[in-house]
């Protein structure tokens, strides 16, 4: 066994669906449900059967709109620039999710985020 097996394994884990594709012979059961949003509109979602590569936040996710004062957005933009983050959306999402994990606790946070569902577009 070569010395770089861990490097190869990490690369395979990051670049292929092999590790995520657990039980990939099991046919998905289409169970949709409707989530009531804050403005009382309904969003239909279904369990995720897409691979990590196929799943997209913009195509299969929901969005969060948050109005900011000009100076607040500028502060965020500067922080993102200072950290050298490639994307402001990634930064905002990650900071929010890290805070949620802290508030909810790791077990509850994992319970929620492991229930992967996608929006069904009509």
């Amino acid at each position: 066994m070569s010395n770089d097996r861990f490097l190869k394994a990490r690369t395979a884990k990051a670049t292929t669906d092999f590790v995520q594709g657990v039980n990939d012979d099991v046919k998905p059961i289409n169970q949709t449900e409707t989530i009531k949003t804050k403005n009382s509109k309904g969003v239909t979602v279904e369990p995720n059967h897409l691979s990590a590569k196929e799943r997209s936040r913009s195509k299969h996710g929901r969005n969060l709109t948050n109005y900011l004062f000009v100076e607040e957005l500028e502060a965020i933009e500067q922080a993102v620039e200072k950290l050298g983050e490639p994307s402001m959306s990634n930064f905002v999402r990650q900071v929010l999710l890290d805070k949620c994990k802290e508030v909810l606790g790791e077990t509850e946070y994992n319970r929620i985020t492991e229930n992967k569902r996608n929006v069904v577009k009509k």
Partner: protein
Amino acid sequence: MAKIFTIANRKGGVGKTTIATNLAVNLSKKGKTLLVDGDEQKSAYKWNEYRQDKLPSIFVLDNLIDTLEPLNNEYDFIVIDVAGRDSQIFREALLISDKIIVPTQPSLIDLEVLEYVSEKVAQAHENNSDIQSIVIINKAPTNYRNSEIGQAQAYIGQFQNLTLLNTIIHDRKAFRDSFVESLSVSEMSDPKANDELQQFLCEIL
């Protein structure tokens, strides 16, 4: 650099943990051995906790690759016991193992899942070309007139990427008793069970 053995099957109850614990004890006589329990039930980890002569052991439920990388040069052998189902730990283990050992009972219901295991091994081979997959018939009936073993051998022989061992481990009380007592059968006084275990070791090493 450790030689990594993963004991896995998609089917539960085929004796993975018994094989893993027996293998770990016997490998520890040949070199520094780490027993890795990757099953939520923690059976192998708990078995080791009750041993007088404890083996180095860890319990891992995710990020197996990252967890084992720093330990790779510290041990001669690493034995990974994973749960009897498909899981991310199983997939990660396939990417880093030298040998995957698949215990199976010789019944049709147990043999049916080998097709899936064979398919996953073939996929893992694309990234881990050194992996060898070995099938061992375990918990075989001791009644010599039973035809199940021969039929199972013929069935397993059809899989080109699975090597069937000549050793057959029979359903012996010594294996069950040894587990309850946190021992290996090599530490008990059942020569038949011990002979089977030693033959198994000779074949895989």
